Every structure is written in structure tokens, then in C-alpha cells.
């Protein structure tokens, strides 16, 4: 039978852990709220951008642009977005699994990786993949400039013709407790729907539609990357929050169990002492 003091020590340690997980849950909840806010904040920009692009596509000839042209080649670049930190349930594992699966499907093609987030880097570095670039520590303070930098890099590699297609793999925020891994093609840009109807106005353009269109397409790529980063950040905080919530609950249960056990042990000790005393008294 373990000594009472050991059980007490154990309870104290579990209680400490419980407090930590509880605090982490609170922090994640606050961060999640902020991440969701920035997700909502980015929406009007993205929506307007789509509207203008589509209405421009009707006016300017979109076929000629290099970011839209489908190429026959077999070289893929896969951008994998993971978190920088762990302790967020299956968040990183799910991404890594989905990415590995996708890599398996595309095995006969020439694949390079761009890794965003420390966890993905840790995993894929140790394996036999060509790694184009790495971006870590973005999620501490997520800024649009990061999305711009990544997009610029991708566009540059793509237009130089080193890569024929670019895919994004990231966690999408569905609900607080649910994430979904998304594999999405970033480049070439999926066909725009040239609808002149979205905008009932015939604009005066400055500079001419074609030139605006050329300027907007790279921005569109930036927005896609930004969107993926925001989704991933929100999903990460959601996942961490629910993981820490579960951990807190488990710790609570464990404390209850240990407390019960401790009481039993204590009672047993008392009973034993009484028996000793009684039997000692009776023996005389």
C-alpha cells in the first residue's frame, strides 16, 4: 500500500497540470476570438476583389496571363501549413497525414515542398523531400506582409517556369472543435467566371482593364495565401482550446479518483491502527 504522502504529492502535481491546461485553454479561447475576428475582417476585401476580378475578366483577355495558363509539366510545389507549436490535439498530425497521403498519390511527379510552421518543418525535414523554402514563426503575430512575402515567392518560382502547379495544404476552421484538411490548387489560378453581370456599371478604367487585371491577379494569390494562414491560425487555436479543455476535464477526473483512493488508504490505515490497539488491549 502506497504511503499517504505519495498520493497527496501526486494529487498536487495533477492539480498543477490542471491549472496549466486551464490557463492554456483560456489563452487559446482569447486568441481564437482574435483569429476569428481577423478572418471576418479579411472577408470584405476578398469578396470585393473577386467581384472586380470577375468583372474585369469579361473585359480584359484573361487567357494570356501566365498565372492563368495551364502548363503540361509535372513539377509540383506543395505548400504545407502547420502550426508552430504543439499541444493542439490532432491538428498537426492531421495535416501531416493528409500531406503525406497527397505526396503518395503524386509519387511519380516531381515534388518540392514549401513548409509554413515549425511542426511541419520538423516532420518533413527528416524525410527525403526537396524543400524549397521554410517559413516559421509567422503565427505569433500574423501579418498580411507574411502572406505577401510567401505569395511573391511562389509567383516568382512559378513564372520562372521552375514549377508547373502549386498546391496549398492547410487546416480549415469549421467549428471550434472541428477542423478540416483542405488541399487546394493555388496556381495556375482556377478559371475565373467572367461575368459582366456582377457589376451593373460600365466603369471608366485607369489604367486600362488589362493592366489592372495584371496587377490584381498576384493580389488574388496573396489573398488566397492570407486566407489559408488565417484559417489555419483559427483552426489551431480552436484545436488547442478543445484539447486543453479535454485535458482539464481529465485532470479533474484524475484528482477525484486519487482523492477517493487517498481516503480509502487513510481509512485503511486508521482501521489497521485501531485493530492493532484493540488486539493489543485484548491480548493482555
Amino acid at each position: 500500500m502506497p504511503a499517504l504522502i505519495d498520493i497527496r504529492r501526486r494529487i498536487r502535481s495533477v492539480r498543477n497540470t490542471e491549472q496549466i491546461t486551464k490557463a492554456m485553454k483560456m489563452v487559446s479561447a482569447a486568441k481564437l476570438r482574435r483569429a476569428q475576428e481577423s478572418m471576418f475582417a479579411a472577408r470584405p476585401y476578398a469578396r470585393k476583389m473577386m467581384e472586380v476580378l470577375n468583372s474585369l475578366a469579361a473585359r480584359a483577355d484573361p487567357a494570356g496571363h501566365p498565372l492563368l495558363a495551364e502548363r503540361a509539366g509535372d513539377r509540383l510545389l506543395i505548400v504545407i501549413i502547420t502550426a508552430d507549436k504543439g499541444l493542439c490535439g490532432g491538428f498537426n498530425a492531421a495535416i501531416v497525414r493528409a500531406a503525406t497521403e497527397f505526396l503518395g498519390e503524386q509519387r511519380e511527379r516531381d515534388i518540392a515542398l514549401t513548409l509554413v510552421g515549425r511542426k511541419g518543418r520538423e516532420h518533413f525535414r527528416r524525410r527525403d523531400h526537396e524543400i524549397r523554402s521554410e517559413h516559421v514563426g509567422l503565427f505569433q503575430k500574423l501579418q498580411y506582409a507574411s502572406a505577401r512575402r510567401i505569395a511573391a515567392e511562389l509567383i516568382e518560382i512559378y513564372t520562372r517556369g521552375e514549377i508547373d502547379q502549386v498546391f496549398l495544404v492547410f487546416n480549415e476552421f469549421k467549428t471550434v472543435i472541428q477542423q478540416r484538411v483542405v488541399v487546394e490548387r493555388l496556381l495556375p489560378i482556377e478559371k475565373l467566371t467572367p461575368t459582366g453581370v456582377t457589376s451593373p456599371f460600365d466603369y471608366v478604367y485607369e489604367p486600362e482593364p488589362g493592366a489592372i487585371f495584371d496587377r490584381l491577379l498576384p493580389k488574388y494569390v496573396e489573398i488566397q495565401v492570407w486566407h489559408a494562414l488565417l484559417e489555419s491560425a483559427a483552426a489551431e487555436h480552436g484545436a488547442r482550446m478543445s484539447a486543453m479543455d479535454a485535458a482539464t476535464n481529465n485532470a479533474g477526473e484524475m484528482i477525484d479518483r486519487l482523492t477517493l483512493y487517498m481516503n480509502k488508504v487513510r481509512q485503511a490505515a486508521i482501521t489497521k491502527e485501531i485493530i492493532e490497539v484493540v488486539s493489543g488491549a485484548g491480548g493482555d
Partner: protein
Amino acid sequence: MSEAKLPRKLLLEVVTPEGLLMRDEVDDVVVPGALGYFGVLPGHAPFLSALGMGEISYGKQGARRYLTCCAGFCEVLPDRVNILAEAGERVEDIDAAHVEEARARAVERLKAVRDEEGYEEASQAYRAAVTGKAATRRRRG
């Protein structure tokens, strides 16, 4: 459009990817287009322009207010102006010390650039910092 129907006010909205910067009814707007500044009064013809770097200014009840903006585009309709800037700040929010620091850093970067490669980026950073610095003077003016 007949005189009677002409709108009196413009609804100005400035949006960046990081969020809504402002939304207000204003009397007029001056916007830094890619090909130069242009002014908008209520009842302007539908107009779509790419944006350069500079100051957006708008008038409201006789007072002028300023924002900085950097790249993006602008949609003008008779009764509203939607500005989608890649980055931007209200002049009131600009941190003068921060801007000065950014300017100094940009100058250093410009000095370090030796070839075409990094020049565009460095000069962009420099112009952004100078724009911000110039805008902070508006607060006293």
C-alpha cells in the same frame, strides 16, 4: 442623371486585408491613383482605378482627415467610394517614433542594395516610411 437625383454625400469605405479602416459619410475624397491623385465628389461617374502609395484625404463638415494607403484599388460609384488598400493607417494612429525608425531602417537598406534585385523592395519600404512620416505632420497642420 438629373440634377435632383444627384447624391449629396459619398459613403467612403476603406478596407484592408487586416480589416475595415473606416466607413463614413463624407463630402469629398482625394485618392492617390496609380497614375496620380484624383478627387471625387458625389455623383462621380463609375470609375475603377489602381492605387499608388500616398495619402487619402476626405472632407467632412469642413474638416479634412487623412489616411495613408499603399497599393490596392479603388471603386468609385456615384454615391460611394470603396477603397481596397493593401495596407493603410489612419493618421491619428500612426506612431511617429515607429515611422521614423522604419525610415532610418529603409535608408540603411537602400544603401546596402547593390543590384536590381532588392532595390524595388527597399525603395518601396522607403517610400512607405516617408509617406507615413509626411502624414504625421498633418496632425498639427
